[in-house]
């Protein structure tokens, strides 16, 4: 795998011009994602109604990979049922750690190449862990860390 396969045009594009990169004042679920080792942070905001993710936005700062991943993820989950987003989280998570082939993920597939770069897997999964944290948390907001993926509900 060479660098061009990691930094595909779609990643570069979403890295440069992230979609859904804005605050969501009406958010019903939010989560902070931190990568304490490199300092990447994203703030994920969801507006969930009747089991459907009506809006998904983020802000924060990170590398091309984590920004593109958040951008692509928010596009993918917008309009989805919460259960479907959870399935997608699991599929994505599996694909990025698997050795062999896994379910095709459409446009998200471009992020899976990162598995050849072990130090960067955490960048690609940061937004996704934040998604799980936001959805699972009983509270309105939560914080997760790439180090354990553990959810720390805010006090």
């Amino acid at each position, binding site marked *: 795998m060479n660098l061009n396969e990691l930094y595909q045009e779609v990643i570069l594009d979403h890295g440069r011009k992230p979609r859904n990169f804005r605050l969501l004042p009406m958010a019903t679920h939010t989560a902070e994602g931190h990568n*304490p080792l490199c300092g990447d942070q994203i703030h994920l905001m969801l507006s969930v109604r009747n089991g459907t993710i009506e809006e998904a936005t983020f802000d924060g700062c990170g590398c091309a990979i984590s920004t593109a991943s958040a951008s692509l993820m928010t596009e993918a989950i917008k309009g989805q049922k919460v259960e479907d987003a959870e399935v997608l989280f699991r599929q994505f998570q599996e694909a990025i750690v698997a050795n062999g082939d896994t379910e095709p993920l459409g446009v998200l597939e471009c992020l899976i190449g990162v598995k050849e770069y072990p130090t960067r897997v955490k960048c690609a999964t940061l937004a996704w862990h934040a998604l799980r944290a936001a959805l699972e948390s009983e509270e309105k907001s939560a914080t997760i*860390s790439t*180090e354990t993926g553990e959810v720390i509900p805010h006090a």
Partner: protein
Amino acid sequence: MTALLDALRDQFPVLDQTVHGKRLVYLDNAATVQRPLPVLHAMDTFYRESNANVHRGVHLLSQRATDQFEAARVTISRFINARFSHEIIFTKGCTEAINLVAHSWGGANLRPGDEVLLSHGEHHANIVPWQLIAERTGAVIRPIPLHDSGELDLEALRAMLSDRVKLVGVKHVCNALGTIHPIEEIVRMAKSVGALVLVDGAQSLANVDVDVQALGVDFYSMSGHKAYGPMGVGALYGREELLNAMPPYQGGGDMIRTVSFEKTTFNDLPNKFEPGTPNVAGVIGLAAALDWVAGLDSASIKAHKQSLLDHATEELNRIEGVKIIGTAAQKAPVVSFVTDFAHPHDLGTIFDQHGVAIRAGHHCCMPLMKRFGVPGTARASFAVYNTNQDIIVLIEALRAAREIFA
């Protein structure tokens, strides 16, 4: 056994030397055990091939170092059967592991009048940190009496238990006398009043099987250099819930999530308790040591060590004026003794001239020495590589000392 032993000894180049013109007979294994070649190679190879700082690098060497470092954490957690590898916190040694618990757990949880019960035989490493924190918190430290055999007086412990008792601290294997304490039973008793149990496992990894879940302990402290690993590395096992609830001990890099002058937030386990650059080579060496121990035929090694202990005990009991201190039914291969003809320190010097390395003194257990009314003992402690011949030389040296003094 002999062929096995010879092959084993070949792994320890340090043993192949003479001191004062005599073959080295190393019987100071409870102070520090020697390292086999695979441990030296593991560390050297790390420095020659993968040396980098861990956790923070995007480059290959750093990734390799991180992978090896975290793999070592898994090795150690499996060796003692911890539930999660992040329940293993790397420290510089057993002493630091205990200080971490005393300071972090003790500092946050002990209130005036709370009690910490420690066996009368504890190593200073499991007394002084508690005294320091007791002074700050107003907690009270009470010694649990020992029988004359060196065994813990469980009846006395039972009588001391109350809901004031917040923690019971006891070593698994006594470095001074060899006693193996009945941890499961102590844990059962402590739990009955809701007290936590910290086990000082400095001497354990080389000598007893450890299963922290089966034992039911809350904290377990370990030392690398007493388990065929390098110096400068040790570990604390702590139950996840406890470690999660504890405040950080030392501050620095890697243990934080975010730092600002206004507000700092802390990282998750295990990083929360591991600020700064860890001893990566040391941790890798420790894992190599445990792999090496795990690769030995544990039944025959156990039998060999028991036979060394029996042999030494028998021979020492034969010499007039020699008294063994510590006669528990369950013992690690350690014999501690005093004589009516020579002070332990003088024995140490005479033994050294015979090539025999033992320890003389209080073994960092002054209260234990006082309990037995001795200023110190002479202590011979055995490792896998010791032989019956080593014991014969030890006994010859003791007879020579008797000649001089008696």
